[in-house]
């Protein structure tokens, strides 16, 4: 059976994190992933701390397996969410969209494992120095807030630069992705897009259908101009946003205002035209709804088969 240092570090069966997706990754999805042997993550996104607290309390009743909270550092509620996670002694803290250094002490003092998402080697090194237990090296293929560097290029460079475990993210949707990530030096994976169509995922049905229908070329990268680049499925909103992004007569403030509230519009309201449907480039291989357990077991069975068969390449 496939086992890595991450399994021992976090007391899990499968070295897989479910990505923290704003307005989507709640206690229901996270508990299903944790029960299946991975790490389910509650996403704070832009939600107030009270909402995050409720989800933490809910998941504690739903599973006795380890779970985590993703603190989105760009959120105006980031500080309160960070405090709530500490008050609830959440054992795994994943951070995204920023530098968590100022919260590190508060989390590590009670023994939390802090695992920041990093889009560059320098940030990975900085996080290691700040006391991170591991890092998630996320390539630009991923959905949501992303950097420029691809997973294939980023993961080995981060692995060379730090001594802590590296988890690969971005573009991983099946066992082939897991096998590749391990070969690049990672000891685990984070997967978001594939879990969007999990049966336990409460995202709007329109969102699931868009992911199920998506092809390889159906995502766009936008938002770099205002310093918050994201990857999302092509639709009316993203196309309009890109037009404005390349229009110098549109100010940054107008652009930011135009993007406000779009994630919720997609995930909760299912507004196909005006919502922002965050998803990664791997959406093209996601073609059916399954339980979180089926997804994880299928992915790892395939990874093991590939890794066991790898000898054929040098015999």
């Amino acid at each position, binding site marked *: 059976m496939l086992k890595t240092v991450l399994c021992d570090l976090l007391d899990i069966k499968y070295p897989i994190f479910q990505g923290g997706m704003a307005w989507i990754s709640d206690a229901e999805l996270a508990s299903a992933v944790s029960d299946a042997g991975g790490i389910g993550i509650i996403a704070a996104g832009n939600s107030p701390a009270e909402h995050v607290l409720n989800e933490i309390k809910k998941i504690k009743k739903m599973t006795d397996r380890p779970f985590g909270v993703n603190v989105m550092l760009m959120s105006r509620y980031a500080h309160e969410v960070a405090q709530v996670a500490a008050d609830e002694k959440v054992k795994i803290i994943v951070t995204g969209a920023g*530098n968590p250094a100022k919260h590190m002490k508060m989390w590590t003092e009670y023994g939390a494992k802090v695992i920041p998402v990093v889009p560059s080697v*320098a940030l990975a090194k900085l996080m290691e120095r700040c006391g991170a237990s591991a890092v998630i090296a996320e390539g630009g293929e991923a959905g949501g807030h992303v950097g420029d560097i691809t997973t294939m290029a980023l993961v080995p460079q981060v692995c060379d630069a730090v001594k802590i475990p590296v988890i690969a993210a971005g573009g991983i949707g099946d066992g082939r992705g897991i096998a590749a990530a391990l070969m690049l030096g990672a000891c685990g994976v984070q997967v978001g897009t594939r879990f969007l169509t999990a049966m336990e995922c409460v995202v709007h049905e329109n969102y699931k259908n868009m992911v199920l229908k998506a092809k390889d070329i159906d995502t766009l990268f936008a938002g770099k101009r205002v310093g918050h680049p994201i990857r999302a499925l092509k639709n009316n909103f993203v196309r309009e946003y890109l037009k404005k992004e390349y229009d110098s007569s549109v100010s940054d403030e107008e652009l930011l205002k135009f993007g406000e509230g779009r994630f919720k519009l997609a995930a909760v309201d299912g507004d196909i035209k005006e919502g922002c449907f965050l998803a990664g480039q791997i959406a093209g291989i996601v073609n059916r709804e399954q339980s979180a357990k089926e997804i994880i077991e299928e992915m790892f069975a395939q990874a093991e088969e590939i890794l066991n068969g790898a000898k054929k390449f040098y015999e």
Partner: protein
Amino acid sequence: MLEQLTTVLRNYKSDDSLQVAETTTFEELSLDSLDVVQLIMDIEEEFGVTIELDKSMKDVGSLLTVIAAAKS
């Protein structure tokens, strides 16, 4: 110290004629947040200090203040 920092910035930007003043902002230097993290690493090596990344750092002047504080 500005001269030494200018050398680091010139190396980072691969621009030997780059001129900077304390008022030069990261934005004017076309440095995004990931560039700033990388630059901090380069500065730490050059100056032999450890710098806490701070969001309020927006220009060369604030960077010099942080380096001076780290050196003292």
